[in-house]
């Protein structure tokens, strides 16, 4: 009988736990100290509020139940849930079981290696049988997830993933250790059961099998427990250096996010939390247009984070960070909601520091604003100069509702600065933002309306303007809802292309659709809203050549043409330009469609 409360085989486990504890505390402490001023201020402001409640709920829903992954694919969700939630329940129920069996307290390892230390518990406490069976059921639950994980390694498509991540050596070793834990646990419990007849329905059955095979032997039992303990210890020791650090880090990340902390343009302690919270699940790979259309699979979010986090991979960080459309599709797909584009921009900013010279814009000094008290300011954006139909239509709409306006960039445009910022030229972008802010503030305009989603996102998020900023689709929608603008409905059937910067970037999905529904018949496409496809001509990726941009464009176009529309509608001059020469179906901006259908008040 194992009456002692200690055996040498628990040592690997104990060392692992101790190492993990000390190392994690040290790491997290360092990262928290690395938060910047703004992030600290947010934490100080919100720490004594009830925000920890939604954080606990989200941590439970995402960390254990893996809700967002389940929404993507049921089987994939089951796999993650059974491993995470199943293991969590094993630990919790195991702790309760040990507590009931040892009411006077017990060392930590008793709960983990319970069956070994308490082989005759069935007479000690009343629900012992129930707990033993429950633990067995939970182990089956975890093992079923493990089986799916192994299956996914061979064939991932039934789990909703066309491509899986290529892992580093450390990650593979850690995964192997993790995969060993549960089979060894089952084997050890069965080996103990073959000697003492304890355990639940499955362990007892397997124990009988072992006895009938003649391996019911204390030496065999001890070996199994030793292997189980080594697997646990190895996994815990490797955790801080592998992707499995995400297990704890995600909880912290969720909490900080609920406190209102966001990433900045510099790598901070919060970025470190984001880097470690990436589980390298590889869900970002499948949706990425670079993978779908061009077969480029070494630059997606997961590899970008890996290259920033791992010291030995940092030499790859630069080309990986540059080679991206910044369409935010991965951000929409990420089950951990990591702000991948911001981290990518951090790398770009670091790379461009040497050539980020802000002294080039002296020529803007003499540009003066127009005194526009009581007017709205209209900013067409650089690209709408190449698609003048949009700005002409906007002028027609302003005139139809009798709105006085100042067309800010009628003759010459000062860029909003976002294209520069996306490429990492933060000082230069700041100069342009300062000039535009000065223009808008001095003009005393009451509202800013822009036709370009890139400018819109910039004005909305990067500028600190005190007046409302609207994209023209929002503005037209507002006019329709307030009854100022009357539109006739024509018999056109249209499909709508969600521009990346407007949809995923700013969350404007419904307003453009409402406007289109008011004038035309809007058809559904297969991939729309947050799953919309990038038009390929977006300014994020400086490395793509025309042919590659075109193939990305064609995929998005085919998606739009599938329901056989009469017109393709979009809300971005760049997307319009991209689709324009693609097919015989006309491509129109929403403003143009609206301008064609205005009912003049006097007739």
């Amino acid at each position, binding site marked *: 009988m194992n009456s002692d409360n200690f055996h040498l085989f628990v040592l690997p486990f104990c060392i692992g736990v101790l190492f993990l504890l000390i190392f994690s505390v040290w790491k997290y402490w360092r990262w928290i100290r690395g938060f910047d001023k703004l992030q600290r201020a947010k934490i100080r402001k919100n720490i004594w509020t009830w925000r920890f409640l939604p954080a606990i709920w989200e941590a439970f829903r995402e960390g254990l139940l893996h809700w967002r992954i389940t929404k993507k694919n049921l089987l994939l969700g089951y796999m993650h849930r059974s491993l995470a939630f199943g293991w969590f329940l094993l630990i919790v129920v195991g702790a309760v079981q040990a507590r009931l069996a040892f009411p006077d307290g017990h060392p930590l390892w008793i709960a983990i290696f319970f069956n070994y230390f308490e082989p005759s518990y069935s007479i000690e406490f009343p629900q012992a049988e129930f707990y033993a069976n429950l633990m067995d059921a939970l182990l089956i639950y975890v093992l079923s997830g493990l089986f799916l994980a192994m299956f996914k390694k061979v064939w991932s498509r039934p789990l909703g993933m066309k491509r899986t991540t290529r892992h580093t050596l450390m990650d593979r070793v850690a995964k192997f250790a993790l995969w060993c834990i549960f089979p060894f646990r089952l084997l050890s419990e069965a080996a103990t059961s073959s000697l003492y007849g304890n355990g639940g329905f499955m362990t007892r059955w397997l124990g009988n099998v072992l006895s009938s095979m003649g391996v019911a032997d204390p030496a065999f039992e001890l070996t199994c427990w030793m292997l189980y303990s080594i697997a646990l210890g190895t996994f815990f020791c490797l955790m801080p250096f592998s992707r499995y650090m995400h297990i704890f880090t995600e909880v912290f990340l969720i909490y900080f996010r609920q406190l209102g902390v966001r990433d900045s343009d510099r790598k901070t302690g919060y970025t470190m939390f984001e880097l470690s919270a990436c589980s390298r699940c590889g869900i970002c790979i499948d949706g990425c247009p670079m993978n779908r259309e*061009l077969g480029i699979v070494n630059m997606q979010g997961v590899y970008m984070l890996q290259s920033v986090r791992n010291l030995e991979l940092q030499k790859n960080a630069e*080309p990986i960070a540059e080679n991206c459309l910044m369409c935010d599709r991965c951000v929409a797909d990420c089950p951990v909601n990591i702000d991948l584009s911001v981290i990518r921009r951090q790398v770009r900013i670091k790379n461009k520091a040497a050539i980020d010279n802000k002294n*080039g814009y002296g020529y803007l000094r003499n540009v003066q604003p127009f005194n526009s008290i009581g007017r709205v300011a209209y900013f067409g954006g*650089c690209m709408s100069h190449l698609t003048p139909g949009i700005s002409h239509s906007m002028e027609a709409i302003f005139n139809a509702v009798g709105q006085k306006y100042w067309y800010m960039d009628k003759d*010459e*445009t000062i860029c909003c600065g976002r294209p520069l910022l996306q490429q990492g030229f933060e000082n230069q972008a700041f100069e*342009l933002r300062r000039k535009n802010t000065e223009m808008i503030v001095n003009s005393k305009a009451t509202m800013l309306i822009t036709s370009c989603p890139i400018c819109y996102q910039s004005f909305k998020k990067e500028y600190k303007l005190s007046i409302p900023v609207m994209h023209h689709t929002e503005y037209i929608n507002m006019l329709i809802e307030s009854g100022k603008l009357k539109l006739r409905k024509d018999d056109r059937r249209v499909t709508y292309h969600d521009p990346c910067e407007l949809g995923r970037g700013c969350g404007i999905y419904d307003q453009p659709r409402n406007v289109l529904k008011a004038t035309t018949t809007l058809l559904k496409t297969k991939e729309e809203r947050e799953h919309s496809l990038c038009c390929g001509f977006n*300014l994020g990726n400086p490395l793509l050549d025309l042919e*590659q941009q075109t193939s990305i464009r064609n995929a998005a176009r085919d998606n739009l043409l599938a329901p056989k529309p009469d017109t393709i509608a979009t809300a971005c001059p*760049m997307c319009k330009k991209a689709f324009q020469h693609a097919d015989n179906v006309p491509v129109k901006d929403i403003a143009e469609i609206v301008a064609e259908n205005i009912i003049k008040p006097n007739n």
Partner: protein
Amino acid sequence: MKKFGFEISKGRQLNFDEMKSDKVNKLLEMVPSYKWCIGCGGCTAACSAAGFTDFNIRKIHTAFFRAQYEGLDEQLNRCMLCGKCLLVCPRGVNTRSLIINMRRILANVDTVTWRPQRELKSKNEGGNNE
């Protein structure tokens, strides 16, 4: 009126033998589409910055090609990278990449890892891909 930057310039001599072409070669290596340029000047005509100042991207990259680097870095800082030149180019030259890379080369920034797309595409990399 748009100023295209064409004006009577002083007489000058280009000695093709003395042209140091390592920078140009580097640029061609990083932006292969550079060699497709026919010098039509569409980029300059569409340019946002050229509306305010005598920034002339066609002139700049022609000068770069002829290895006349004086003053180019200062000129290039005026670009707002808005990307209009990219959309009007009839030859599909990646003008934005051209500008960024000219700046990098002129500033002697290490560009070892900066390679065109074709070479970045990894073959048979990644996990299983049925």
